[in-house]
């Protein structure tokens, strides 16, 4: 008897849940602009960003000032021209002419071969050349100098000076050092986060701003049901999004998926628990949609972009900020994404990250529920 009663109560709870679900999905459908934003925008973004997010510097622009004008100096210039690293954009007669070239970015590195270069070397002394790098673009500048050092070392070796010890590098996981393989899975994580978090945040704030939250309150729904009913549609949207974006990652950008697809999917769930929970949490903090927008941009999205290790390696940060990164869910998900894609590792290696995401997700949802109930009450 009591058993049947409980059964029907559970049935009723399930029915209400399904009703909210349908209401949310209907609301999503009512806005014709939201669907393209949800499904086409991520694909376009991933494609554009996947092409853009390359840190591979190809052919640094080089300006040359040859003051020696001998066979040896011309041979050296030839080494730069024929190397795969440089593109000679200007030949000038004096170093003063470097200034406008470097200022406007037409050259990133400038090479000067001083008069007497050949004479010095024939006398057995090392021939010195000057390299000027544009430090304003610190990345191209540093890499340009490193490339030049390689070219010069090759020149020395060709001339007969050989270092006794050589270095034989073995590059694991990404042997051709293609930065796309590293960045594209990261963009996937970023897009999932932005989409699911913002949607959830807005969905709840809109109800309170429009006053329909009061209407939901007079229904026999518990806050828990209300929350679950709000989250499930967006979790579904998030999953569908993963499936729309993954083919682009795998077949367009040909990022190798060395691990198991199932592991990837399984570990995406606790991550979405975090992002949906954060969305709900934002909605309990914000009173207006503009506040929700500011909060999610500054307090939640920016740290995920900058402190997760997406583009800025965590190891380069000061200790305090390294500690802060443990609060960023994307940090863990990036390790998972890159681990499954590039290293082909599974749960045996990634369990600490998965555990961290589950704990964070539950904590965030619990916190959001607490605040949610207080606001309703």
């Amino acid at each position, binding site marked *: 008897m009591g058993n049947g009663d409980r059964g029907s109560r559970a049935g009723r709870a399930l029915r209400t849940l399904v009703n909210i679900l349908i209401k949310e999905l209907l609301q999503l459908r009512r*806005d014709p602009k939201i669907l393209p934003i949800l499904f086409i925008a991520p694909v376009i973004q991933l494609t554009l960003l996947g*092409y853009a997010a390359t840190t591979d510097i190809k052919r640094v622009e080089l300006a040359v000032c040859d003051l020696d004008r001998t066979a040896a100096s011309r041979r050296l210039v030839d080494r730069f021209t024929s190397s795969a690293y440089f593109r000679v954009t200007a030949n000038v007669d004096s170093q003063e002419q470097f200034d406008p070239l470097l200022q406007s970015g037409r050259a990133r590195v400038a090479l000067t071969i001083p008069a007497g270069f050949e004479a010095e070397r024939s*006398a057995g002394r090392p021939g010195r050349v000057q390299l000027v790098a544009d430090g*304003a673009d610190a990345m191209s500048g540093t890499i340009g100098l490193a490339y030049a050092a390689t070219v010069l070392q090759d020149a020395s070796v060709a001339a007969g000076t050989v270092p006794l010890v050589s*270095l034989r590098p073995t590059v694991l996981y990404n042997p051709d050092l293609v930065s796309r393989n590293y960045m594209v899975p990261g963009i996937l994580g970023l897009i999932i986060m932005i989409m699911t978090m913002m949607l959830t945040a807005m969905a709840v704030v809109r109800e309170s701003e429009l006053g329909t939250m009061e209407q939901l309150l007079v229904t026999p729904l518990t806050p828990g049901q209300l929350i679950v009913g709000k989250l499930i549609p967006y979790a579904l949207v998030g999953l569908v999004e993963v499936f729309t974006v993954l083919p682009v990652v795998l077949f367009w950008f040909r990022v190798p998926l060395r691990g198991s697809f199932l592991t990837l999917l399984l570990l995406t769930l606790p991550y979405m628990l975090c992002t949906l929970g954060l969305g709900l949490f934002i909605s309990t903090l914000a009173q207006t949609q503009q506040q929700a*927008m500011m909060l999610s941009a500054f307090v939640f999205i920016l740290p995920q972009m900058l402190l997760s290790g997406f583009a*800025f*390696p965590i190891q380069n940060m000061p200790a305090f900020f390294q500690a802060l990164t443990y609060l960023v869910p994307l940090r863990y998900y990036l*390790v998972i994404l890159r681990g499954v894609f590039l290293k082909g590792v599974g749960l045996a290696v990634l369990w600490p990250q998965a555990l961290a995401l589950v704990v964070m997700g539950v904590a965030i949802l619990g916190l959001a529920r607490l605040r949610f109930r207080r606001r309703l009450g």
Partner: protein
Amino acid sequence: MLRRTLAIAVKELLQLRRDPRTALTLLGMPMVMLLIYGYALSFDVQHIRFAVVDQDGTRASRDVAQAFLQSGYFDLVSQGRDPRVLDALFDSGRVQAALVIPSGYGADLAARRSTALQFVLDGSDSQTATTILGYARQIVGSVSPMIRKNARDAAVAPVPLVWYNPDLSSARFLVPGLLAFILMVTSVIATALAVVREKERGTMESLRATPLVAIELLIGKTLPYLLLASGAATGALVIARLLFDVHVRGSLVWLAAVTLLFLAASLGWGVLVSTVAETQQVAFQLGLLSSMLPTFILSGFIFPISSMPPALQLITHLVPARYFLTALREIILKGAGPEVWWNQAAGLLVYGAVVLAVATARTVRSL
């Protein structure tokens, strides 16, 4: 016309005053963000998690391992003789780079025979890996004795010199980028909801009853935020100067002019989003998606535009921060005058004008 524009601006200001939290956030956030991320972010690779596998165990092998550790870039995580432990260390990410010294290394050196060290590194993050490999080459080059085989000429030695940013500090490179990024996001947030809010609340109808023209409405709505954003930009520049030692080498007047152009263009983008969207939810999504990721990735903030495929380089022209960032680096770091960056300023001007024109056209329809 001017009077009506100003009237709208005053109305918008009053509305802002009623929500001081939003106004303060828009004003203060860029400074706070610059403060936080200016300290946090850097491209200077350090504390590389490092393993040494010394199969040689001679004085020479210890010397070369020591040279790596003393360089200051490498943190020793694991040390041993068996290279088989490396697999697990790399898989779990506990180690990023490993030096394997083969047995016979010391004997080879003593006999002045050529010899090789093996250097294993995690290539997932190609940029960090390239930097680490550069460090390793440098260190090995400095410890290796040189021999001259049938030498005709002596070696070539570079004398490197870095202009504009002599210590290659990535802060000086990153701060202008951060500034552009943060200001773009702030501007779009400021205006993306401005028009759509009126539509959603139905107050657009009452505006329709006034003799207001679309362009007056849009400019009037943007002006107060231009004021706020200019304040925020000034504050951020002061922080860059005081805390991150980013000196403005060029003229402050030009800097202010270019910054104003950029703020107008990015606020304009927010207004355009606001006129396109029917609901605040859509405006919110559209605004953040179109400002955050593209500015982050397509403006040259982190990824050099010159490395992108040509078609994409064209697309970067749709991102206003691209022009601003280029001009900013040229004015702040290089001290360049308008003859160098005039095309960036022109780009911003055209961008702002087009965005305003499209937004006006859209508003005319809804008014």
